[in-house]
């Protein structure tokens, strides 16, 4: 019976305003919806402008699209505008990629399948609940596994997509990446899911911090004037730059056009607010429409005058950037510090009170939660779990190195407690200088079970930034401006001098100043590479020969490790070259214009992102998944095969090929190790064989495991980290800068686990990998949280853009004030040891099991996955199983 389980609720629960509650209720009933407006007008204009300069052509298309979006305002909203007409809307961008949303029989889809760009779609799982449209019904067609589009719009979308065939970044990039020697091997790598995604056409931007400064300071009219003045100034001058100096004229023209487009979009909303005011009978609602009209009419031209206008403008800018390109992880940065001057002014002048601010922040949370990104099933389901990672950072230090937290950030925490929603998730930039009251408020938020804020180490991030951006002259003051981009990507930012209204003071506000920080080589599966090493380059799932045979006998641990590094390096080199080409095509035809003009120093230099207009450009990375399964596997191989010779390599390979005598995870529809089922001796194997499998599997499971403060395995992790973080720097991005390591799993540990055979650490075929990069494999950390922290900090975290450690705590473990203080001490302890990131799921595992059985009772249940918070019902089963299986600490 469903109510037989004793379920422990979370200790802290907030109460949102009635208005927010009503709007959230609508959200709970809303389907992810797609429409054609943006791609229609964009394509129409683009194809009219043959031979126009690329940046201007794109800008004209963007202007056309923005200015034709239908404005829809929902009753009760105070912060208005959304990506499309729908409450939770998005749209296809066939100029980036078009094959993945065609029907499976379509030749374009089949072409994508062959080159591996849709392989991840087949192994990604989308939660079937919430707003996901996983099946067609009535007049709604399910598209890309998650979204619903009206059947009346589908034929036109397909027609638009066909117009882009051979011209999209995906297609054009593919044409040129084929010229890279060994390209066939790259296709095999993608098809076998050794790597989960290409980078240049999937989500080419994001995992970065937006910069709201220029429109806040100058307003749209001011910026249009700057662009116009600059055009007069630079027209016909190369300025000593014979390559791209002349482009400045076209770039400023492009900037001006896109600004005009976004301005028209805002004005369309203002017009709609005015129309609604006229037809509205309720006087309060009428008044609200009037205020919305006035605010929009003002910010369409001028810098904002109040907190509310500034908040509205920041939201508008945010979704304008999101509409410009396919983006996940466009972070708000330290919005509480950006908006503080407006908040302080309004409070001082009696224009606003705290409760109003909290309600506005709740409404802003709801707006962000509605943000969808239309991308392939593999990207949206396999990586993002439906989230779009609009991350809000709080805390950190100011320009002078002092505690930067403020009372508005306290209210942001409060809004997050009262209105628990997946977005924006919160990231606390931890520094020892931060005030205890602020930190305890954050702990209170963690206890709601939303998983936010996550805690990131200010000092470690700054060390990473100073090293990575040394060649671009980053200094300590600038390093202090950083924020998290995406779920936990350390991103470079800058201090901008803001003046508001008649206030004589200059406020230095932080804002993003770097390119996307998680592009380049996406998610290489380390356990899958190990599988290729053990089986001489052959994928055990497909039997395809992915890499050239290494022809080594792997007679020693050193030989095994050297072979692993060789294979890994070959894969990385090939992927770097192919993805550099994809991004190069992107920058030639699909460059960011709106996002560029927001980032220093594009406006002053006259160069957009594609011409190194950003202040920081050394932002490309190499991402890995399954670190801990690799480390545990290496420890097991070392122990069982080489040091103690408990089995031969051939015996191990035989066991792996036969999944150690277990059924496949898919056949039993569970992706957690603890649920796996053994084959019976009636199913084609002998009893003796089964005993042998059991014996081998037991040895694999007993081998030393990461997370227990054990030197044997921790030293393997340290060696790996030292090598991996160093080797990344041997590769260059298309912008001529060295790459760095990025170690987060997002949701890839589900899809990539699904295609990987059993591993030498005892993990069985098809089951999900350990999450993050430093979370223990479920059930293998036996010595408590401090032992896990010891293992996790055995190497220098500042050599990587990030690391990721997730804890699951039973609500009872941190109950009451003493529990809060204990949790804070745990966080402090980890940060002081040099750990970069720590986050918590405060949840009773029994509740999760119940939610899996009875999803209808848990529409609002939130869990922390890996760097993001999501509704339980919108997560795929393989990730749900992994979250359930995570070790739950019942006491600290």
């Amino acid at each position, binding site marked *: 019976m469903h109510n037989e389980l004793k379920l422990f609720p979370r200790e802290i629960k907030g109460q949102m305003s009635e208005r927010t509650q009503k709007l959230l209720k*609508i959200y709970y009933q*809303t389907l992810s919806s797609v429409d054609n407006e943006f791609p229609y007008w964009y394509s129409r204009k683009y194809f009219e402008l043959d031979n126009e300069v690329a940046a201007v052509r794109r800008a004209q298309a963007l202007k056309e699209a923005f200015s034709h979006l239908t404005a829809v305002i929902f009753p009760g909203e105070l912060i208005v505008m959304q990506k499309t007409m729908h409450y939770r809307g998005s749209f296809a961008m066939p100029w980036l990629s078009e094959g993945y949303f065609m029907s499976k029989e379509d030749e374009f889809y089949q072409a994508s399948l062959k080159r591996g760009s849709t392989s991840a779609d087949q192994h990604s799982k989308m939660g079937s609940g919430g707003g996901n449209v996983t099946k067609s019904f009535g*007049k*709604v067609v399910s598209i890309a596994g998650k979204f619903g589009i009206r059947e009346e719009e589908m*034929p036109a979308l397909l027609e638009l997509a066909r117009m882009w065939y051979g011209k999209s970044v995906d297609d054009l990039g593919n044409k040129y990446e084929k010229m890279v020697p060994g390209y066939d091997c790259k296709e095999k790598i993608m098809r076998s899911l050794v790597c989960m995604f290409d980078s240049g056409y999937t989500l080419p931007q994001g995992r970065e911090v937006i910069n709201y400064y220029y429109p806040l300071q100058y307003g749209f009219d001011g910026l249009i004037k700057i662009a116009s003045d600059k055009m007069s100034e630079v027209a016909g001058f190369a300025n000593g730059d014979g390559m791209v100096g002349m482009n400045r004229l076209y770039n400023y023209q492009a900037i001006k056009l896109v600004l005009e487009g976004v301005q028209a979009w805002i004005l369309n909303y203002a017009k709609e607010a005015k129309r609604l005011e006229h037809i509205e009978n309720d006087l309060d609602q009428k008044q609200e429409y009037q205020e919305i009209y006035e605010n929009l009419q003002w910010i369409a031209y001028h810098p904002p005058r109040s907190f509310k206008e500034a908040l509205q403008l920041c939201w508008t800018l945010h979704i304008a950037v999101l509409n410009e390109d396919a983006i996940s992880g466009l972070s708000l940065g330290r919005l509480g510090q950006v908006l503080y001057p407006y908040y302080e002014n309004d409070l001082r002048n009696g224009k606003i009170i705290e409760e109003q601010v909290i309600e506005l922040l709740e409404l802003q949370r709801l707006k962000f939660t509605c943000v969808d990104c239309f991308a392939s099933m593999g990207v949206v389901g396999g990586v993002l779990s439906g989230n779009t990672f609009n991350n809000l950072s709080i805390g950190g230090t100011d320009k002078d190195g002092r505690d930067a937290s403020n009372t508005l950030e306290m209210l942001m925490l409060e809004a997050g407690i009262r209105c628990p929603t997946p977005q924006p998730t919160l990231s606390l930039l931890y520094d020892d200088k931060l005030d205890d009251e602020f930190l305890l408020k954050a702990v209170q938020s963690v206890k709601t079970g939303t998983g936010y804020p996550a805690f990131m180490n200010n000092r470690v991030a700054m060390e990473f930034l100073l090293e990575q951006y040394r060649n671009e002259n980053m200094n300590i003051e600038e390093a202090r401006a950083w924020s998290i981009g995406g779920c936990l990507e350390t991103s470079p930012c800058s201090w901008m001098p803001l003046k508001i209204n008649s206030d004589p003071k200059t406020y230095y506000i932080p804002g993003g100043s770097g390119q996307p920080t998680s592009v380049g080589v996406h998610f290489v599966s380390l356990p899958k590479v190990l599988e290729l090493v053990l089986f001489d380059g052959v994928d055990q799932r497909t039997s395809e020969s992915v890499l050239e045979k290494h022809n080594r006998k792997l007679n020693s641990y050193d030989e095994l490790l050297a072979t692993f590094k060789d294979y890994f390096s070959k894969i990385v080199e090939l992927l770097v070259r192919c993805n550099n080409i994809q991004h190069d095509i992107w920058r030639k035809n699909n460059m960011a214009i709106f996002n560029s003009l927001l980032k220093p120093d594009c406006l002053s230099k006259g160069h957009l992102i594609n011409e190194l207009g950003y202040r920081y450009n050394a932002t490309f990375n190499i991402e890995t998944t399954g670190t801990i399964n690799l480390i545990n596997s290496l420890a097991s191989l070392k122990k069982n095969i080489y040091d103690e010779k408990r089995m031969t390599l051939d015996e191990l390979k035989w066991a792996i090929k036969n999944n150690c005598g277990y059924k496949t995870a898919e056949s039993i529809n569970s992706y957690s190790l603890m649920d796996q089922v053994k084959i019976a001796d009636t199913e084609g194997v002998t009893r003796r064989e089964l005993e042998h499998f059991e014996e081998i599997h037991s040895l694999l499971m007993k081998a030393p495991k990461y997370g227990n403060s054990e030197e044997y395995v921790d030293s393997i992790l340290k060696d790996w980290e030292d090598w991996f973080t160093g080797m990344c720097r041997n590769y260059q991005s298309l912008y001529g800068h060295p790459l760095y390591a990025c170690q987060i799993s997002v949701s890839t540990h589900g899809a990539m686990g699904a295609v990987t055979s059993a591993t030498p650490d005892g993990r069985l075929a098809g089951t999900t990998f350990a999450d993050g990069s430093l979370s223990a494999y479920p059930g293998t950390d036996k010595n408590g949280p401090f032992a896990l922290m010891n293992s996790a900090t055995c190497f220098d975290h500042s050599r990587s853009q990030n690391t990721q450690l997730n804890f699951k705590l039973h609500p009872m473990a941190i109950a009451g004030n003493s529990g809060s203080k204990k949790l804070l001490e745990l966080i402090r302890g980890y940060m002081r040891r040099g750990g970069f990131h720590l986050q918590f799921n405060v949840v009773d595992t029994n509740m999760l099991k119940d939610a899996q059985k009875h999803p209808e009772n848990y529409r609002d249940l939130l869990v922390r996955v890996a760097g993001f918070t999501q509704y339980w019902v919108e997560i795929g089963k393989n990730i749900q199983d992994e979250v359930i299986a995570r070790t739950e600490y019942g006491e600290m």
Partner: protein
Amino acid sequence: MKNKTQYHYRDTLNYAPVDVVKGIDLITKSLVKADDLAPPEYELLPKCKFCKHFSSGANSNYKGSCLGFAKPFLAYPDMIAKTCSSYIKNEHE
């Protein structure tokens, strides 16, 4: 007196589309189905299918052409034309 045509909610100006199947009636504030009939007094939402410049396609009910600008281009009946500078309502609508 001529009876006023009753349109589907999704073809009226008093409908805010929450998603592809439902929306909010901006007058009553209630959640309504996109394909339900709206009250007869609700004003028509400009869409290509109501525009003089729209030419239906021969092979598909859901595709046609827009002849309202210098160069003809793909169009589809259900496309909202509220922001289109060339929209001219068909007389019979």
